[in-house]
C-alpha cells in the first residue's frame, strides 16, 4: 500500500465556509492516527471518522495539538500553497499510522494522510511532519 494523502470533502466544505465568511476556522491543529495497519486516506473521511477505521491518538505526545508552523508558499501561481510543519515527541510506544490536519475548532479535518507503513514510535522518538497543500489550476 502506498502512502496516501488527500484534502478531504469536509475540509473543502470548511474552506468554502471561510470564503463565504460564514462560521469556520482555518488550519490550526494536528493529530496522529492510531492503527496497527496501514491507513488509506479517503476524501470521505471526517474528523469524527478517520479513514480505514483508525482513531485519533489521545495521549503520549501524539494527541491533538496546535501545529508548530503554518505558512504560505508559491508552487504554480503566487500564494497558491499552504505549508505546515510539526514535531510530535512520543512519550510511550505507539503506532503512528498517519495524521489529520484540522481546523481551529477541532471539529473539521482538512487533510488526511496515511503513511507508507505504520511507524512504530517509542518513548522519546520524534516525528517531524512536513506538509503542503496546493490549489492546482492545471
Amino acid at each position, binding site marked *: *500500500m*502506498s*502512502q496516501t*494523502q*488527500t*484534502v478531504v470533502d469536509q475540509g*473543502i466544505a470548511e474552506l468554502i465556509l471561510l470564503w463565504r465568511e460564514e462560521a469556520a476556522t482555518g488550519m490550526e491543529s494536528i493529530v496522529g492516527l492510531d492503527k496497527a495497519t*496501514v491507513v488509506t486516506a479517503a476524501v470521505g473521511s471526517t474528523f469524527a471518522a478517520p479513514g480505514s477505521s483508525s482513531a485519533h491518538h489521545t495521549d503520549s505526545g501524539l494527541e491533538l495539538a496546535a501545529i*508548530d*508552523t503554518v*505558512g504560505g*508558499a508559491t508552487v504554480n501561481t503566487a500564494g497558491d500553497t499552504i*505549508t505546515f*510543519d*510539526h*514535531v510530535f*515527541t512520543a512519550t510511550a510506544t505507539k503506532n*503512528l499510522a498517519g*495524521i489529520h490536519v484540522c481546523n481551529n475548532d477541532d471539529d473539521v479535518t482538512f*487533510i488526511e*494522510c496515511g*503513511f*507508507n*507503513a*505504520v*511507524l*512504530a*514510535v517509542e518513548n*522519546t*522518538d*520524534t*516525528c*517531524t*511532519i*512536513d*506538509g*503542503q*497543500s*496546493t*490549489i*492546482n*489550476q*492545471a
Partner: protein
Amino acid sequence: MGTEKVITRGVFNAIVTGEQREGFCEYCGTRTKKEFYMDGERKRVRMICPICGEMGKLIVKTYSIQAPPPPQCVRFKCLYKFFLDTVFCSLLSTYHSKRVSYATHNRHKDMPERYRSGEPSPQNIKQAIKAIIKLKFGR
C-alpha cells in the same frame, strides 16, 4: 486527424512526509530540543541537539508519491506515456511501502542509509523493479 485537448479540473494537491528520529543526539547523546528556523521565507521546525547542533538518528522517512498527471490528448504516444507513468508510480509506491516497513521494524539494525531516508529514490521502472527485488532478497 486533429487531437482532442482534454480539460482537467483544478485540484487540491496535498504532499506530506513524516521523518521519525530518535530523541537523543546521534553524536553526544543529549536530548534534542525543538528549534524554529527560517528556510528561505518559510518558518520551519526541527529537533536538534542544544549542545552540538546535530539531530537524532534517523529511523525512517516516509515518502509522498503523487499520481501521474492525466493524459492531455488521445494520441497513442500520450496515452502510452500515461500508462508507463502509472506503472512507475505503482512500483515506486510498492518500493517505499516495503522500505518504510523494513526500516521501522529493524530500527536498531545497520542498513544502507537509503532504506531510512528513501533517497536516492528509483527514477524509472527498471530501477524501481531492481530496488524492490534488492530490498526483498538482497539488502
